[in-house]
């Protein structure tokens, strides 16, 4: 059955690595719904966090094929309840609407915060799950939303134990050579 899964991939810092990873999803006709990537706490090691709608069976195979790539350290599939995750959204609205008392309340109620205020616009930030971000979007809509932007998923795996150590070991091993 198709479900939403989080795939995490630890990679070397290499030109084209995104391409190498995504093409494996493409070949199996899997659509990537979000992709976040950034350097980890270990210099030179990157973490990709990919969300997809697919089946466990397919994804286990995809992950095997991803791990086969030379510059990949490890890749994992996670069920929804195996990860703690957040997404981040930015909302830009016209400053004149800020005077509206309801907006302030709305920001507070949503646990959001104001990042920037200029003469023309305000940027509000909120982290949460997709549903919450969208719900705030709906609430802001009547106040003249100018632009909305949302990140992909950032996730931490509940059961990961020594992964940080593992990555550090790798770097040490490399340094010895």
């Amino acid at each position, binding site marked *: 059955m198709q479900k939403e899964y989080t795939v995490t991939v630890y*990679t*070397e810092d290499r*030109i*084209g690595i995104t*391409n*190498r990873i995504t*093409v494996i999803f493409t*070949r199996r006709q899997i659509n990537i719904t979000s992709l976040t990537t950034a350097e980890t706490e270990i210099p030179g090691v990157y973490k990709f966090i990919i969300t997809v709608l697919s089946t466990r069976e397919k994804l*286990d*195979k995809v992950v*095997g*094929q991803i*791990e*086969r790539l*030379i*510059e*990949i*350290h490890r890749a994992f599939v996670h069920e929804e309840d195996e990860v703690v995750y957040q997404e981040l959204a930015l909302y830009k609205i016209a400053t004149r609407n800020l005077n509206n008392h309801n907006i302030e309340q709305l920001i507070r109620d949503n646990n959001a915060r104001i990042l920037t205020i200029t003469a023309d616009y305000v940027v509000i930030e909120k982290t949460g799950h997709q549903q919450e971000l969208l719900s705030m979007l709906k609430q802001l809509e009547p106040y003249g939303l100018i632009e909305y932007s949302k990140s992909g998923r950032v996730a931490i795996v509940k059961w990961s134990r020594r992964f940080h150590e593992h990555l550090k070991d*790798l*770097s040490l*091993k*490399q340094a010895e*050579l």
Partner: protein
Amino acid sequence: MQQKDVLPTKPKTTASAPAVAENITGAEAVIRSLVAEGVDTIFGYPGGAIMPIYDALYDFQDTVHHILVRHEQGATHAAQGYARSSGKVGVVFATSGPGATNLVTGIADAYVDSTPMVCITGQVAAALLGTDAFQETDVIGITMPITKWNIQVTRPEDIAPAIAKAFYIARSGRPGPVLVDITKNAQFAVTNFEYKPCSYIRSYSPTPELNQEQIAAAALAINDAKRPYILCGHGVLLSGAEKALIALAEKAGIPIASTLLGLSAVPTSHPLYVGYLGMHGNYSPNINTNECDVLIAVGMRFDDRVTGDVSKYARQAKVIHIEIDAAEINKIVKADVAVHADAKAALEALLPLVNAEKHEEWLASFREGDKLEYEKVQQNELHPKAGGLTMAEVIRRISEKTEGRAILVTDVGQHQMVASRYYQFRDPNTNITSGGMGTMGFALPAAMGAKVGAPEKEVVAIIGDGCFQMTLQELGTINQSQIGVKIVILNNNFLGMVRQWQQLFFDKRYSSTEMINPDFVQIAKGFFVEAKKVSSRDEIDAAVDTMLAHKGAYLLEVVVEKEENVFPMVPTGAGIGEIRLD
């Protein structure tokens, strides 16, 4: 130049150039790196973006033998043939743009068939990258899904490390093709050079550690089995596990069947060898896959040509899958016991743990199927009473006259299946064919490369009339480099395999499969390759003798029955149990 009666002259490998040098060009660094890796043969084709490298090669002619092919596709297949016959890494040079794109078919072929190959392509200067410059092609992007690894190098100091990594990756673990694209500025620029072979990449662990629990579980399953069955794949040859495999089979009394690429790992005449698996394989090895109780798949990946409809494949069997590439385990067939390991290491570890057994009844059951296949198919093909020559009788004749000792290089189609069924292999690595891709045009260049890689061996290419016309220009290379391959064209004036499908599944609507062929003998002679054409049964003996006695390259065209079909056959989409004998 006339063809001379000599074997290819192997360059004397002089003491390798020092692996340290100051202020040399990137181009020279390329050649020195290759020399440091022990490369003595390169297949390639020059052009603007790789000219500095060719220029550097000029000074190394005593050490490195460059074979000028007639098309870059030919270079890749030649490198494949070379790698498969010599066990070394095949090396290819090509220029940017069209040179590089011409490599694509051979790289993809090497990728699916796990053949170690390093391709070095020239690229436009770094400053021009991404500008659609003359002959700029994104070869890195194009080859990303078909290489084990690729890299673009834009600075001369990065050349040696890139090549070191390329060789390590190409030959380790599950081997495969690697591409190094080098910009022209990096070839011209000067650098200090030091060659350090690569033996470690932190994100890559090619040789899995043997897991004793997996081995114990496999041994337990084998010892419990009443009808154990080994499927031997290319991985057996790649890891040099032939002896270990046979030792295990002999001790535990287990029949062995082979995939297309596993052929020649076990001698055809071995009493435990039961034949060739797959769509056009032998009858009993296919049928008995659905009868065994333990299936021991060694270094094979359950290609759909082997399994047919997976939902009807070996459902009854406990599957032990010995495989070096973790991504292949559970990909197609779920393994009950997964042994993630190098085939040789795993088999050697298994040997002391398995019980001595005979399984006579089980073995005998193969012989029943063989008898049926012989009566219904083989007898008519091997000893036809009338009609044109059959492919089978030609292959069997070649098999007998070479005593199964030749390296057989086959192209793609009916002739490939017939050759795989009827050639009686004796020594490992004597079957070279395009399995996973099924690339027409493979055999002529691959045979050429195989001969260069193993000059002491007889190399016989079996090629269809259609396939031959895809890469026949390599006759030019064969002539120029004096490569003594024997070329047999089985000419049925049809794209036979496609015609067979049209006959069986498309109501005999022969859409674009009939071929009006040129005079192959004239063509060969035009390239100064000796040639002869035969079409009747009583000529074939002498013709094969003449071919084999001839020193140097020789082309034998054999006109065969136009509408012969290859049986047995598992129709696409059917289970292997539904294999047809006619």
